[in-house]
């Protein structure tokens, strides 16, 4: 396991989403989808919700049972980490059910073009928080 407990997962992956949400220009590109997406992680367990329904901002919440998601993506936290490092074959992960998508697939497809810069952003973020060790773990 890359992340030893939910707290570490929240700090690293959650922290990354929060950083992305603070980059106004980038957040706007992401939020154009106006989607509410929930990532349900296991090993360790944590769910992270990205609320982009206003079309401008990304609101990050944790284990949020109030908001109703349009798309849910279930995966192990290790798979998520590998994905944001740009090391995961997304097609294979979905085919082999390492990543399970629930909800309209076209909404997820629309995301793909804006993802490209995030892989480097994640690596930069890991360095910034002193977790370079995780770059090689993925």
């Amino acid at each position: 396991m890359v992340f030893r407990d939910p707290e570490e997962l929240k700090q690293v992956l959650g922290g990354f989403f929060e950083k992305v949400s603070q980059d106004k220009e980038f957040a706007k590109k992401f939020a154009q989808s106006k989607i509410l997406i929930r990532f349900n992680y296991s090993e360790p367990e944590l769910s992270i919700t990205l609320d982009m329904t206003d079309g401008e901002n990304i609101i990050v919440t944790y284990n949020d049972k109030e908001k109703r998601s349009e798309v849910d993506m279930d995966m192990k936290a290790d798979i998520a980490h590998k994905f944001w490092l740009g090391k995961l074959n997304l097609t294979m992960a979905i085919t082999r059910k390492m990543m399970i998508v629930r909800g309209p697939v076209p909404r997820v497809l629309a995301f793909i073009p804006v993802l490209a810069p995030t892989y480097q952003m994640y690596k930069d973020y890991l360095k910034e928080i002193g977790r370079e060790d995780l770059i090689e773990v993925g």
Partner: protein
Amino acid sequence: MYGYKGRILYVNLTSKKVEVTNVSDDFYGEYLGGSGVAAKIFLDHYKKGLTYDSEYNPIIIMTGPMAGTPTPSVSRFIISSLSPLTGIWGESNCGGFFASYLKFASFDGIVITGKSENPVYLFASKGKAEIRDASKLWGLDTYKTEEFLKKENGKDVEVISIGPAGENLVPYASVVNRRGHLAGRTGMGVVFGSKKLKAVVVQGNEPVQIAKPSKYKEYLKEIFEVYKENPTMAALKDSGSNSSYDLSLQTGDLPLRNWSKGVWPEGDFLGSVKYKDKILVGIETCYSCPVACKRVVEIKDGPYKIEKGPGPEYETVGEFGGMLQIADIEFIAYVNDIANRMGFDTITAGSTIAFLGDLHENGVIDKSFLHGVDLKFGDKDAVLQTVKSIADRTGIGELVSLGSERIANLIGEKAKDYITTVKGLEAPMHDPRGNFALALGYGLSVRGACHVSSLVFPVSSGFMYFPEIPELTDFGDPCSEKLKPELAVKAEDFGMFFNHSAIWCIFGGAALNATQVVTLFNLVTGFDYSLEDILKRGEKIWYLKRGVDNLFGIESKDDRLPKKLKTPLSEGFTQDLAPNDEKMLSKYYKLRDIDSITGKPSKEKLVSIGLSDLLQLLYEG
């Protein structure tokens, strides 16, 4: 007979003789259908000195046993012959509705030899067939041809036809059904053209018998549930084959600027979102396919105005977008419309134009070689002028219609560094530098560089998953040579069954695992094959096709990637990466018992798999 009709139509266009041959269960049990059967028929027709335009070069049109049944994504047919483009085994498979109607007309396939003096078309209905005059059709594009033949024969017919490219013997001319379903690669349309065969029309309503109808019906319910739940099928339904475009661009799978660049920011304008926003007006499907990945597009005004019709597939977007650096989806739809009407393959056409653009940019050729066209990457006008001249082979079209390998041979050694062919066929839009298995996929493909000649690409890219076959499940890091030869062998053997003989669609079939496809095959045909039985027959079919290639001079040196595809890029997702195909091939030849110089299977191997007839031709002349 179940699944199969047990009848193949033989037509000789010289003698005008039409006859029907009954086929036994045993024969189909061994060669399965589609290109397995076609390869055996081709071998039986083989004579030394055969060329694509020989009278006795057969056009073999074959369906699989499940075409015409409700089984999803499998009502397809193949056309094979000696390829005019590559001079080796030619083969192309196609969806649409033709395969089912050929079965309904009471035939599994058609074998056409001879040559007509005047344009003709073949009409097959209810177990009978006749050769009819097509003089009025010669010169018409594929859309008008189909329209005419439906008017003449009724709306309940299915048509495959060639356009002016096939008539004018452009070596990569295709055969077209319903305007947008193409047997596109290796120039099967040229063999039609050389025989003055404009079209084949089929009509019928005789259903296909299922061996175990009640079990089949029950099982089919489960299968349709699989389709409903599969996210890849949902993506295909939503965005067609171009649903993979954005990911391909990001991960370095999409070749750029004749395989020379790793980054193209403007490329974002060709993904699924832009496609939908700008040109999409509907979707279509093939016979009994719940996926419906075919796109319908329309451009109402502007320079690239086109009427409602089939939209470009991923490969066409890749060729005229990424390869030629044109980030305009309307332009690409316009080019696609021309290619469908004229009847030629957009992969070979796009790659040949990009190859010439690269040579021009690097000063290997000048404008005069290009018939005065200032062909450059990103230049829409020059590319369009070129595309428009391919079918009638005028001006630069005379040059481009040759395909890249013949052009390279005209230029000489200097052109070799820019070419993207294996065995004379231009590589499609998937880059082996980020997926080393594909070096074997392309190198060993029996019809030349191709991503669907085996299951190497669909499996290694993650699009397909067959957990029942260990070699197709664990094959290591995508950018290492380890375990790739083992993957290639099984991907070829299973692929010979899956998308070649049973002829499952590479897209729609991706929803299923090996157990499901073998079960469906058994329920329809009444065979009781295990996966092992299927792999054994797939192996035999693969060796048979490889042997045919050997008969036409293919040696192991022809299994290598061109330099362009294994030169590392200095940027992008696959920066500094390139496969070592020598290393993988050396292991592969051992696994296949193929001589590492001659490229021929050993005598012992051929005997052990029951191919003594091939052995005689390969070793005893």
